[in-house]
């Protein structure tokens, strides 16, 4: 009979109390606090001390026990206050490929002229990130999320918690930040070579025109950039890894066509993504042709992004 009754999912009731916000404010009503295991052990030790004081009639024993009892209560107030009225804002998240971890920058701010210590963040059961916040200050914390599939990824509910200062109580709150991350399809491993250039003016298909392209600047190295594009001279000058950027008109048309790929949707998209990356690394200008969308050949940062975005959001 119990199985047939529909038990409402009471856990969801508790969890859906938070609206999605640009800037989450941990108000008074949304902070939960409970004793930790250490807190309960502390309580037991206090009881033992109290019994000992009664048995041996130690007045100073009472003083110490009651002082520690008061300390427990005060610790609860401090732990609660550590979290109260904290605000969280999400920063923009750089897109990544499926399977790579995404680094989500969350800014924590204090408005109470109070230092916050050992504030921890995590999404679900992911790794914990811990930081301090100066009075009226801002701290940026980075939460790492794993990505699995392409498309828009909402980080979901962020849990903010702390045990500071004495570890006797655990205070936590939830924040649902309005931010999402674009996840590109994972580029396929065993890739076909780039399709041949069908409408070139008689020149060899894979003619690279690196030297003729317009150099448009340097940017910081990002994972996935081709080693061919790295400015090694800058690197040898200890300026770090910088990637050269080029922007140029389409001179040859390389079309990355949906119909040139095989397999199911995801495999095709993976293949296309790999082609986009190869084309980019090769300094070629390319166009993307999908069943529902066509992007004319072009080259450069924004073109790459547009294509990858199209691939990520195909069919979604």
């Amino acid at each position, binding site marked *: 009979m119990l199985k047939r009754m529909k038990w409402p999912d009471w856990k969801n009731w508790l969890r859906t109390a938070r609206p999605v916000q640009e800037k989450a404010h941990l108000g008074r009503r949304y902070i939960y606090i409970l004793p930790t295991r*250490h807190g309960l*052990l*502390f309580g037991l*030790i206090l009881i*033992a*001390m109290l*019994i*000992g*004081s*009664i*048995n*041996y*009639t*130690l*007045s*100073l*024993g*009472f*003083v*110490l*026990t*009651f*002082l*520690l*009892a*008061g*300390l427990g*209560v*005060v*610790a609860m*107030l*401090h732990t609660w*206050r550590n979290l*109260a*009225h904290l605000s969280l804002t999400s920063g923009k998240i750089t897109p990544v490929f499926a399977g790579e971890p995404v680094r989500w920058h969350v800014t924590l701010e204090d*408005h*109470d*002229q*109070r230092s916050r*210590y*050992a504030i*921890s963040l995590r999404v679900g059961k992911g*790794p*914990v*990130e*811990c*930081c*301090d916040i100066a009075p*009226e200050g801002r701290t940026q914390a980075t939460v790492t999320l794993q990505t699995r599939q392409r498309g828009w990824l909402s980080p979901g509910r962020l849990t903010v918690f702390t*045990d*500071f*200062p*004495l*570890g006797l109580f655990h205070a936590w709150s939830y924040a649902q930040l309005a931010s999402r991350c674009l996840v590109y399809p994972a580029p396929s491993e065993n890739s076909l070579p780039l399709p041949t250039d069908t409408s070139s003016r008689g020149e060899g298909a894979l003619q690279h025109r690196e030297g003729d392209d317009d150099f448009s600047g340097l940017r910081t190295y990002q994972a996935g950039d081709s080693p061919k594009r790295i400015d090694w001279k800058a690197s040898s000058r200890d300026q770090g890894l910088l990637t050269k950027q080029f922007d140029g008109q389409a001179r040859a048309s390389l079309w990355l066509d949906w119909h040139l790929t095989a397999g199911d949707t995801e495999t095709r998209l993976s293949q296309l993504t790999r082609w986009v990356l190869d084309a980019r690394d090769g300094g070629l200008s390319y166009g993307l042709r999908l069943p529902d969308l066509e992007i004319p050949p072009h080259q450069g940062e924004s073109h790459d992004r547009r294509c990858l975005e199209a691939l990520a959001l195909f069919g979604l």
Partner: protein
Amino acid sequence: MMNNSLTLDPLRWLLASLALVYGLLAPHLPMWVTLLAVTAGGWRYAAKLGYIRMPRLILLLPIAAIAVVGITLSHGSLLGRDASISLLATMMALKLLESHTRRDATLLVFLAFFLSITSFLFSQSLLAGAYLLLPLTGLVGTLISVNHPVGHLPAKPKLRLAAIMLAQSAPIMLLLFLLFPRIQGPLWGVPEDAYSGMTGLSDHMSPGTISQLSRSDSPAFRVAFDGPTPEASQLYWRGPVLWNFDGASWTAGEQTRNLPTQQVTETRLPTRYTVTLEPHNRRWLFMLDLPATTPSNSTLTHDYQLLSAEPVRLRLRYDGASNLEYRLGDQLDPESRFQALQLPAEGNAKTRAMARVWEKDRSEQIVQRALSMFRDQAFRYTLSPPVLGQDSIDDFLFTTRSGFCEHYAGSFVFLMRAAGIPARVVTGYQGGEINPTDHYLMVRQADAHAWAEVWLENRGWVRVDPTAAVVPQRVESGVATALPAGEPIAPLMRADLQWLRKMYLRWDAVNNRWNQWVLGYDQQRQMALLSRLAGSQVSWQDMIIGLFATVSGAVLAIAGFMLYRKKRIDVLQGMYARFQRKLAKAGVSRHPNEGPLDFGKRAAGLLPKQAKAILDITLNYAHLRYGNIKETHQIEALRHQIRNFRP
């Protein structure tokens, strides 16, 4: 990223705090336990710094077993106060060598709290209590450090936070201390050795027993008189009465338990006083000769000795009244007479011979003759007389002629008995020192004394102090003045170290108040205080309700105080929001991410006529919002400015 391992900073705090706690206990622990603790601490620290490796568990287990054996050997058993404390201290030291995570550190902190409370079993003095604040702050700092695993928080802010938290706990502690119902302990049996180490009078007297107490200047009891303090010559504090002499020492004697009580006829209003008696693990309570009242839970024996129902193991306060002038006894019943004339069959022939010569005289004359003998012959009063032989009385009266009050009292009573006068030895304390700060009388162990009572027809039992015949200063001004220079008396009794005594007396006045109000806060006092505050009798249910109510109130007050500062910012933000609204009406809106100063400049540019006012308000706002100083009048001034602003 957080991990659970114990880093260097919390370890430093933990070791420092533990060192302070162990420092307090070290005099009461066996030497090797302290050494083990120091070694464990040093090893752990060196291991953290990378010099040594931590010992493996298989090494620690045998060490623990050896430690348990060691404790059993040092203390005689594994049960009992000292053994339990040593066991806890040792196990904590070994745990230190096995601590790798933050949880281990937290556990050690909690155990250290418990260990701190055990130190009160040895001393609850004001100093011990005050000292304990140091390790307590350190332990709270350790917890703060343990719970701050990432980032940089220097020691001073940690210390400051620990101190603030303890200060905030103090009001709750006071309320709990006053209102938490005191249950009469002990709840279960207390180990025998819990009260070892208490000095005081014993139930027998032999040469040396009382002079031994002269080495101790620790207080025996303190007395607060209702009215003027009696003269020194009347301050005889009655203790054990000894009837039985076996040739070597005087004891109360089993057979004298059931003698009939003598009647007292008083001749003056009794003197009233309150005695605060230090625990001495015996049953006798001290009152002035001759006790007129019996405090609760005690009985008066037939020879007017006050005995409490239980051995005095805690500081005890009782009220008493005594008649300083009295007549004790009308008729001496045959049994008492027999007991009061008992002498061993053999020994001390010379004394007996001399007594037989005196026997013919009247009793009063015999007493006078004895006292004259003490006065006129070259008797000396000293703490270290020559050793007496088998015939101790003979040796003392005729050969050595030097001794302390026990010699004089004992030999006098022997002499009286040999001369046919019923007599008995009374031990107790004589005199005392008045503390000029609080005007209470302080009687120390060194004031212990022995005197005699003789039965005179028509006068009853009369007190005779043979020591007074030899050194009247003893009775008038205390032991130190009566002894010749160079005697090994306790430092605080010495006449020459005046500055030391003055300091000590002032300190003792504080100590006495501490004893009365903090340590003496028992069930009785609690009921009295609360009933007086409430105006009527309080039951323990009332106490618990009052406890919950006041503690909740205190917690709410503290919480309110802690959250107070937020309001001020809200006030400022409210005012600035009003300012923004006014400007918005004039067409100038602040962009979401624009700071107040930028906005102010922009608005001043757009509304040049009010540029000065706008910039003024903006600067003041920024100053108050982000600066450290926030005075109420400044906030009010800003409010005024904004109110008068008309774009």
